[in-house]
């Protein structure tokens, strides 16, 4: 009898743990490395609250798109939005999850953080090797009262393919027609020969080279500039006002972006209207198939994203990410309701 009892008890325990594990299904996502810290943080907090595990692998935007297209993950993530044609062809939806900002960082003796003013055009000309010295007329004219040394400029860029490069070169294409025509935008580009270029591996590599090479200029995620105490510059907004990189100016860019007229949320946030909009901000995107095999699981995934929008704001700001504005979140929720289906039935009410 005792034996029988213990057998029954243990089998009940096993059954109980089974049903528990059925609930704590694992959701798999993969893609861009830029949002990895915040996705990991959200996943951790979300698991504490709900028990549902989200597994996010930072394999790069290209990898994210490939994996979701091949349906080996539940959601993909990319820093560069897929274009609407491609998106419709693959029958996927895409929505912006969170934003970040890119800032120019420099290493010029005697110049403090936030002191030097640069314009987008000057930045493009520096990266094209047309401006070779820090005390170039165009820079000194813009910065009266600042002592700028005669120092050769070293241009630092990412040597690895990167969403940051994609957004940075997109910005340069917008402010400089010559850049757009000759060089263009991509996760990796052919850097102009005329400039003295240094390629750094990852944000950390760029930060390292700028930090130790006198005369260097580079571009990094805002968080990196802040955490590594790099000297950042001011930039002019699309309306010509000089701005400091800060949460306020980043959020202004997010709020002023014209998401309504961007089908499939295919929008890069560079050079958005508004005097106070920081010119280099970028959203990172989530990709999902419209037709979901498992409605229940799809619902769980959407629950997580909804939670991230609603409760993840503070966590995002802590890590120097910019939360999506309310209006955009509402638009995304509409897309979920309209486009996500399973067996022809909508999933989200």
């Amino acid at each position, binding site marked *: 009898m005792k034996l029988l009892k213990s057998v029954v008890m243990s089998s009940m325990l096993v059954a109980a743990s089974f049903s528990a594990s059925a609930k704590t299904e694992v959701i798999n996502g993969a893609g861009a490395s830029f949002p990895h810290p915040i996705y990991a943080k959200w996943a951790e907090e979300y698991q504490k609250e709900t028990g549902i595990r989200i597994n996010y692998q930072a394999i790069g935007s290209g*990898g994210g798109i490939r994996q979701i297209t091949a349906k080996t993950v539940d959601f993909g993530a990319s820093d560069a939005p897929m274009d609407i044609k491609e998106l419709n062809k693959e029958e996927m939806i895409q929505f912006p999850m969170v934003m970040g900002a890119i800032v120019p960082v420099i290493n010029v003796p005697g110049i403090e953080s936030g002191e030097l003013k640069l314009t987008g055009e000057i930045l493009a000309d520096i990266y094209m090797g047309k401006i070779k010295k820090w005390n170039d007329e165009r820079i000194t004219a813009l910065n009266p009262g600042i002592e700028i040394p005669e120092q050769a400029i070293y241009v630092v860029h990412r040597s*690895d393919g990167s969403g940051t490069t994609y957004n940075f070169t997109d910005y340069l294409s917008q402010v400089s027609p010559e850049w757009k025509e000759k060089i263009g935008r991509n*996760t990796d580009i*052919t850097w102009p020969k005329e400039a003295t270029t240094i*390629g750094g591996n990852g944000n950390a590599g760029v930060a390292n080279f700028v930090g130790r090479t006198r005369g260097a200029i580079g571009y990094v995620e805002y968080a990196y500039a802040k955490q590594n105490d790099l000297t950042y510059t001011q930039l002019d907004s699309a309306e010509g006002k000089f701005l400091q990189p800060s949460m306020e100016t980043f959020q202004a860019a997010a709020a002023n972006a014209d998401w309504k007229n961007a089908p499939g949320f295919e929008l890069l946030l560079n050079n958005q209207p508004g005097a106070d909009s920081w010119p280099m901000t970028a959203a990172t995107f989530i990709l999902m198939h419209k037709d979901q095999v498992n409605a229940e699981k799809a619902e769980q995934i959407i629950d997580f994203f909804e939670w991230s929008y609603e409760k993840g704001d503070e966590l995002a700001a802590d890590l120097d990410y910019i939360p999506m504005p309310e209006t955009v979140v509402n638009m995304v929720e509409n897309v979920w309701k309209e486009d996500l289906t399973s067996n022809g039935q909508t999933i989200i009410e």
Partner: protein
Amino acid sequence: MLLTSMPRAMKGDSIFYRLSFTSAILIFLVLIGIILSLIDGGWQALSEFGPGFVFRNIWDPVNSEFGAASAIYGTLVSSLIAIVIAIPVGLGTAIFLAELAPDWISRPISMAIELLAAVPSIIYGMWGLFVFAPWFSEGFQFWALENLVGLPLIGPWFDGPPIGIGLLTAGIILSFMILPIITALTRDALKTIPNVVREAAYGVGATPYEVITRVLLPSIKNAAVGAGILGLGRALGETMAVAFVIGGANRIETSLFMPASSISSTIAQQFNEATNEMHISSLISLGLVLFVLTFIVMGIARLLLRKR
């Protein structure tokens, strides 16, 4: 007794033969499989650019124009630099450890060398970037810019920004990486030479120099060549260490101080974020090029060294 045990021994022989034959065939099949999948993955780029892919000096992901020339150049030059540094130093170290140094010196150094061989390549890369590159920039590049650039022939090699990274740095880091392999293998080969050989040589009145150069080195020639080829193989394919210090510029420059890229570093750095089909296909084609290139370089190395 003998008669009954014979068939069993022969059975063992035949099993052993079959096993080793299968392994050899398996390796061959795997090799073919790798080549086929590389051709399949890179087909889009290969059919678009043709065999000229190898000679095209352009790498422009924006306009989907790709060619392997600059990556091949970076791979070959950085490996050449590595070999030029590592072979003499490795050989010298091996001779010192095996023949000249007293035990209390050679033991700890030998162990240190084996440890060096076990250090993962990414550690070399990080060390190269954070420790070696700044030192190299301050300690050598500024000096070279002042003193070497004016020289005929080799001057242009050193005419570049003193930023501590580039082709030369990559080559030097590679030489550190392959040094332990070359040293350890050569030293072990020297150690396998029986002492009678040395004693006999000394017996006829040879000096240590003569013993080493005329007797010992010729007898380990094959092992030393093998060590060099293994080292070269590692240098050609090394990825992360190079990716950290080579600077990631897809172009061919005369200056060894300029940023460049190797085949494997290009693949490793760009594959993750490549979203364009042609870009991905070109990267896979680069893999095929590296495969073939390694074959050719190894073949040439063997031929050149066999002839002597």
